[in-house]
């Protein structure tokens, strides 16, 4: 394979990371919390699609068409995201970050173990949602999944940026992440804005989960953990709280991961990705596009 192929599949993987990282970054921006369970929402999304589309698992399910299954998966995740926020995070809005973080870890473990009880620990074969063949340009093969992930990724990112910049709800999100109290005084419904943020983040996670499992065609209760953590690395890399940062960070991380897999070592790739995180935090803790936040004394 050529350098260009690696690069392209890196961009593809990076687009998935970017979609997940967007969820992290939006939630972080608005609630100042690291939603540890975000990675597991990806897994739930992939499992929902798998359950909906496969004829055997759910009794009486003939196996729904892919498009319907995708929609169900996105819906389930959106609902799940909102529920998680309402049940677990909302009561802790003024609690210490330690308490919130431990709760988020609890939610993450809860989702993983629920999936474990329902689906078992064995990985299930996941049929790619992409059904058309790949391209071949000048001897270079590009898989259909690569094309779809990059296209979907770019479309969503552009759409989301426009939504936040121009829609009323998007502006409300910006206001709430800047100052909850002031936003409330301006007549913004803080609770519903936070819910909306979790909803969008989780819907993106569902899309990311479906794409991820189409590229690496299997799903298990542990599927979400690694991409989840790596996407967090991407969000930090780009500057947590920054939406363009999450996109740039995600794509860069995907490229770094694929190129080090190709040219350094397959075994060490996770270590390299994490080393990137540590390096970024040492050199520029605010990431590529993050804002500096100082504590008021």
């Amino acid at each position, binding site marked *: 394979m050529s350098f260009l192929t690696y690069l392209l599949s890196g961009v593809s993987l990076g687009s998935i990371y970017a979609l997940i990282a967007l969820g992290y970054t939006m939630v*972080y921006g608005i609630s100042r*919390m*690291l939603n540890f369970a975000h990675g597991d929402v990806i897994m739930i999304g992939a499992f929902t699609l798998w359950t909906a589309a496969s004829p055997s698992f759910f009794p009486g399910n003939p196996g729904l068409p892919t498009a319907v299954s995708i929609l169900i998966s996105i819906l389930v995740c959106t609902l799940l995201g909102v529920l998680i926020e309402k049940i*677990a995070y909302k*009561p*802790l809005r*003024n*609690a*210490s*970050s*330690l*308490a*919130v*973080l*431990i*709760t988020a*870890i*609890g*939610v*993450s*473990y*809860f989702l*993983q*173990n*629920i999936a*474990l*009880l329902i689906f078992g620990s064995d990985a299930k074969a996941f049929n790619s949602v992409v059904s058309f063949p790949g391209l071949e340009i000048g001897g270079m093969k590009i898989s259909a999944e690569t094309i779809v992930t990059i296209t979907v990724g770019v479309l969503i990112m552009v759409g989301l940026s426009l939504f936040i910049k121009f829609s009323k709800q998007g502006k409300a999100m910006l206001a709430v992440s800047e100052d909850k109290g002031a936003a409330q005084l301006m007549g913004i419904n803080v609770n519903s804005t936070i819910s909306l943020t979790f909803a969008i983040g989780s819907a993106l996670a569902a899309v990311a989960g479906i794409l991820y499992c189409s590229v690496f065609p299997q799903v298990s209760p542990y599927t979400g*953990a690694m991409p989840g*953590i790596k996407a*967090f*690395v991407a969000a*930090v890399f780009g500057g947590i709280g920054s939406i363009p940062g999450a996109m740039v960070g995600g794509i860069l991380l995907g490229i770094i991961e694929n190129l080090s897999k190709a040219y350094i*070592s397959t*075994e*060490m790739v*996770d*270590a390299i990705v*994490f*080393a990137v*995180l*540590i390096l970024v*935090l*040492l050199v520029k*803790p605010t990431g590529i596009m993050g804002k500096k936040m100082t*504590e008021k*004394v």
Partner: protein
Amino acid sequence: MKKTLSASTKSNLITYAMLAVIFAVVQLLSVTGNLSSLVSGLLVPICMYIILAVSLNLTVGILGDLSLGHAGFMCVGAYSSAIFSMLTKDVISADLLRYVLALLVGGAFAAIFGILIGIPVLRLKGDYLAIVTLAFGEIIKVIVNNMYIAKDIHGVHFAMLTSISDMGLDEGSKEVILNGPQGISGTPQTKSFVIAFVLVVITVAVILNLINSRTGRAIMSIRDNRIAAESVGINVTKYKLMAFSVSAFFAGVAGVIYSHNTYALQATTKNFGYDMSILILVLVVLGGIGSIKGSILSSIILISLPEILRDFQKYRMLIYAILLIVMMIVNNNPVTKAFFKKIFGSLKRLLPKKKAAEKSSEVTQ
């Protein structure tokens, strides 16, 4: 003026008394032959978990920083000590001496890693610290799984990212010590409950004494208010590093217990990865953040229960996860807090005030 026991001294005495009772009960059961093989096999691991939980509590409860890399330090301790024991098993014939040295080697290596990791990482706060310690734990696991160490007549050989057969060893005298992902097999075993229990007592004593000293106060002042701590001349970095490295040292010691209780040592997510770090965190949180007694009790209960009740095993992590969420909400949400205060108000007055007792220090009147 009369000297009275302070609240913290009293609390510490209860902790030691509790440990003494546990030891007596276990010995009594084992002498009378009432200890099933299942339970006796659990004794050393439970000691290990107590050490892990108590030492993590130093970071989470006393320093107030969330570390998700505790299993990584345990991994460093396990591997470094197992390598040490493998290399010296023909040189040092006295098992106990070799084990004691292995404990020191494992603890020291873990502490050194703690300092090396701590220097860059402890500047970060909250979420960042958690994720970076997690990342370090994973890096350590990946590196260990790609390390190869072998011995032949020419000496000890070390290599990364290769295989034993590619290391050009002398076939006749070749002795594999660490074989990448296959890990280490044949580490001399020390499965004594008494030794493990002594280690528990040492860990508890060191950490309790540390908490009730000048150093411990400095560490807790950082937890309560970093800016105020700096304003009264506390060197924040120094004391954070100290707490972090002591915590890592004992995680390393727990790793030594693990590797000398496991014939075939391998690094997986379950034993040295994220899963393990979370399990230790669960022990700390459910026992009560900042409570050493609580960490001891929760380790005993939460580790032995699923082994004894096999049906419970399947739901174990699910239930722990729910407990974790419920505990956090109950303890940190003003509404639920007030609600429970109302219900348990009368009950609480009968019980000794745990929080105040734990955190106060000696008062001489």
